[in-house]
């Protein structure tokens, strides 16, 4: 049985981007806080902190997750991928090539989500793409370019790092 005390901070280990990191957290700290403030991984952005905007998206066990809606202590035994772990990934390149970036604040969350989409469903159709992309909000409303980036990538068949 895992048990973390109420008041004191505890040392935990998080498995992020293929590496194991120590983090000192409160039980009430979300994964987003631990990533940003303990590990210095600031790619996951603090947006609504309510699970609505997707700016904080990371992959937990390969599945897109709002890091603002997970406790850090909840995911100590699970592999986590952040935007920093997707550097030079095909999806990052597709976003650049398709100008799927405006202010950039939502971009890490979109890229993480799209990476999971194209690796899980390399044959994704428009309906599935729309369902997945509904999880992220772009206040600059650059949705068309983001959709185009996903389409380009799926058409190229290059869905994994080579």
């Amino acid at each position: 049985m895992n048990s973390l005390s109420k008041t004191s901070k505890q040392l935990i280990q998080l498995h992020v981007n293929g590496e194991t990191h120590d983090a000192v957290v409160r039980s009430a700290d979300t994964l987003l806080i631990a990533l940003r403030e303990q590990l210095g991984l600031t790619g996951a952005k603090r947006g609504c902190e309510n699970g609505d905007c997707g700016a904080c998206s990371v992959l937990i066990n390969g599945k897109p997750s709002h890091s603002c809606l997970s406790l850090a202590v909840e995911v100590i035994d699970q592999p986590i991928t952040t935007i920093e772990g997707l550097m030079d990934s095909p999806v990052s390149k597709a976003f650049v090539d398709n100008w799927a970036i405006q202010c950039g604040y939502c971009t890490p969350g979109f890229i993480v989500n799209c990476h999971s989409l194209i690796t899980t469903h390399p044959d994704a159709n428009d309906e599935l793409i729309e369902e997945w992309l509904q999880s992220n909000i772009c206040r600059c409303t650059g949705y068309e370019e983001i959709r185009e980036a996903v389409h380009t990538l799926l058409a190229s068949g290059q869905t994994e790092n080579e």
Partner: protein
Amino acid sequence: MIAFDFKYIKPTTAKEASKLFLNAKQKGNKAMFYSGGTEIITLARVNQLQTDMVIDIKGIPECNVLEIRGNELVIGSTVSLNDIAKSKLFPLLGDTVQRIADHTSRNKITIGGNLNSELIYKEGILPLLVADAKVKLAKGLEQRIVSLESIFKKQLELETGEFLVQIIVDKSYLDHPHMAKKRTKISKVGYPVVSVAALVKECQIQIAFSGVCQYPFRSFKLESVLNDTKVPVMERIGTAMQHLPEDVVDDIQGTKAYRTFVLRNVLKDILEELELTK
């Protein structure tokens, strides 16, 4: 950021989880069972909820089951909405939960969390009500299996220290003709103005509603009106409106008049389509 501290515990048995809850209560502390945790985290962040301890039940194997066992579908309370939809084991439930929140959130929201939600919608319960589901509950050393309908009175009425372990659906319900319809105010992702799940069993439509009243419901009286095929569809719907369990919700998501209008149209679509399958 959550401004207050709490203790986090992840037991591996139902007995242990229940004992932790009761011990905390005995010491004057507040404990909460934690499944997906999305609602606990969001409410705690804005101080609408306080707790001294969260008991994460995802470590209990019984709560993670999703399989056919003999003549029953068994769904653990900590199974995520996306996993339920992807399994395609109960298409009506899959169709319904696939419209709750957004895809990423559904990786975290669990069926048990949805059923125990503080929100009025709890749409995951609709297919379970129409499929006459049973639930397995745990408290201390004891576990009991009861009909969902018997313990769902506007919300799940569980005893102190008791929690939802599994949902059990008779296999015969899984492939009945069915329909799930959800209408939102604007976007596809959002709380329902009206959400309905229905299936046909022995030529009778069984139907449950969310977004209409302050809680999800299934009404046998309303079903008997809707199934009276001697009466024209719109007349049946008009009569059914008089058998709603309470006033239609009137809020920022939709006025009473708008919700009533939408409900009439949804019912018309459902009756017309499902009656063809009878």
